[in-house]
């Protein structure tokens, strides 16, 4: 393999990891909610879209106020977006899912689809249907390697996405493994009735799960806004579907699985687009998913689902 081919490969790798990091962040929301109440939160993609819209509004507001220092602006945007998006996540659970605990399995799914339709059109009506372009927030990058007529580079924003995602994932794993809240969540995941009997506030734990999932989706929304520089009310559907695929690929219900799945989907997309064809990249992701599920019906890191009689 000559140098420029290797360079191209590494460039796709960097792009793929960046994309995968974002998918992973969204996928965690799916996987946590699934783990705890066994439902597919179809509206999660819209939650991420809401995060992106809050980010755009906040960025514009800050620039109007004259706050130009990038680190400060970024921190504020992240906090504001997380706050409002988490509020949406909490409300969605309260309105559309909590009344349906213990209902037939498909009822929350339909309710989620209704919520997704609602949120999409709500944002379209209140914010307009045209794409929102945002001036680039972070420019420049590092040239990692310069060869004959080829440069391998990682932009600051890519670096930021990868580092932030990694930090969040580490922090999050600690949160689940070490804190009382994480313990309560794991208890509810295993047996909700028993957890309730032992004094865990199940409703509150579930609500917090939605809030945490929404917060991570908000971060993903902010990152995407900065990375692509343009968003519209429809981005939630596609991203949600990819993240859901990622969660299932990694084994739904498993946190490391969601991260791994996200990364894999990002890499598959980047390499498939780069080497074969951009038009069929989603076909490639789904085909890999199906192939994996044929051999491992509960995903890569999922626990085998033992059915008891």
């Amino acid at each position: 393999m000559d140098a420029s081919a290797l360079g191209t490969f590494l460039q796709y790798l960097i792009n793929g990891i960046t994309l995968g990091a974002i998918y992973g962040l969204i996928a965690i929301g799916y996987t946590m909610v699934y783990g705890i109440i066994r439902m597919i939160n179809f509206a999660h993609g819209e939650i991420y879209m809401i995060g992106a819209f809050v980010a755009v509004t906040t960025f514009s507001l800050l620039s109007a106020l004259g706050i130009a220092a990038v680190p400060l602006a970024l921190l504020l945007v992240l906090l504001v977006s997380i706050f409002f998006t988490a509020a949406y996540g909490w409300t969605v659970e309260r309105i559309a899912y909590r009344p349906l605990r213990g209902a037939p399995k498909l009822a929350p799914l339909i309710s989620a689809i209704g919520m997704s339709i609602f949120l999409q059109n709500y944002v379209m009506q209140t914010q307009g249907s045209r794409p929102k372009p945002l001036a680039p927030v972070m420019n420049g990058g590092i040239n990692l390697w310069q060869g004959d007529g080829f440069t391998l580079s990682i932009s600051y924003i890519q670096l930021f996405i990868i580092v932030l995602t990694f930090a969040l994932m580490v922090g999050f794993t600690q949160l689940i493994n070490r804190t009382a809240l994480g313990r309560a969540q794991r208890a509810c995941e295993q047996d909700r009735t028993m957890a309730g009997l032992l004094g865990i506030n199940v409703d509150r734990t579930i609500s917090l799960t939605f809030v945490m999932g929404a917060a991570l989706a908000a971060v993903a929304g902010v990152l995407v806004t900065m990375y692509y520089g343009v968003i519209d009310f429809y981005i939630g559907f596609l991203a949600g579907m990819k993240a859901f695929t990622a969660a299932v690929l990694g084994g739904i219900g498993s946190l490391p699985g969601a991260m791994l799945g996200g990364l894999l989907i990002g890499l598959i997309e980047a390499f498939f687009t780069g080497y074969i064809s951009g038009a069929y990249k989603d076909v490639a992701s789904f085909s890999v998913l199906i192939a994996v599920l044929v051999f491992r019906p509960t995903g890569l890191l999922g626990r085998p689902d033992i059915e008891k009689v």
Partner: protein
Amino acid sequence: MATPIETKLKDSAAAAGLALVLSIPFIGLHTISTDQGLVVESRWSWVAWAVGLVFIGRLLLGFARDALAARAASRPKKQAKPVAAGEPTLAARLTRAFMAVALLFAVTLPFMPYSDRYIIDLGTTVLIYILLALGLNVTVGLAGLLDLGFVAFYAIGAYSFALLSKFFGLDFWVCLPLSGLIAALFGALLSLPILRLRGDYLAIVTLGFGEITRIVILNWQSLTGGPNGVSGIPRPGLFGLSFDRRPPEGMGSFHELTGIDFSGEHRLMFLYLIVLALVCLVAWVINRLRALPVGRAWEALREDEIACRSLGINPTASKVSAYAIGGMMGGFAGCFFAARQGFVSPESFGFIESALILAIVVLGGMGSQVGVVIAALFIVMLPELGREFADYRMIVFGLAMITIMVWRPGGLLSTRVPTVKLDQKGA
């Protein structure tokens, strides 16, 4: 038992506070693209409206709940009457009566004086959705296998007819069974990799199947025309009679032969009657299938897969046949859709269609055919009725879906009763 008014006021205030938080970034502020980039504008009066509406709405909801609870408490609990075996229940008789009336209404609809183009067209749309939902009902309602990509079969049926007529010049009546067969084949194909999967894993794989189908149609330009679609699909004729003013070469025309004055509405009426006949046929076939071993096996599979295995039912065959037969119905609907539009493009086959069809099945109460009819009416008519609020109708539609599910989680008519049941045990 009524909660004191103070609690209600507090509750409503909390809801209003939440509404305030939620509405600030979306209703209160919005960005507008200008030459200088995005500019933020505010609409605080809208926020005030939203908060006020939520406060009043929540308060009214609290009172309504109390009133309902009081009424339920004052009414004596009804004892379920044991039903003698073999005797149709009241519900079953009501269902039959409703079906008869609905059928009579449906058959006479196009001939009624008030029926104009719009009504007949709308009726046709409702019937297409009923057809689709009946098909999906086989997979989801009867066999209990979730399918989020049902639109794939719809698309395959539509494109089968479009392409067969384009490349081989086949007409509607030849293509109808062919489309069904092709879609059934794809259904069987789809079911193979997912035999071992359960519940939610099925959801994503079927969703993926639907998306793969759409993407392939969109990008296989040389065969499907890509985003431009296929146009010039021939209209169905009646025994070689065309409904066009000037029939194509070698065909007679309906208005010349019968001596009735030409009217474009005849073609619409004819299409309507075709799909009505299709719906009746499909509903009847499914009802017969339910009484056959394969239908019994589907329902048994839905109730308990392990028990099925131990009783010697072949789950593989049951699953494959459920997807194939459901897919076939979807294929019929697609073929008809192509004939009606005269044009197909990938746009018509997005995920939202799958979601709507699934919503019809679930809203109707899984497994219930009457439920499907009512839910299809609802799902198709609601956005139509809301035409005046064009912009807001999808918002209302989403909310309505949530409200109905919360109100009746089992669907409008929840009759998930197995066709065969032992006397002692409840479903």
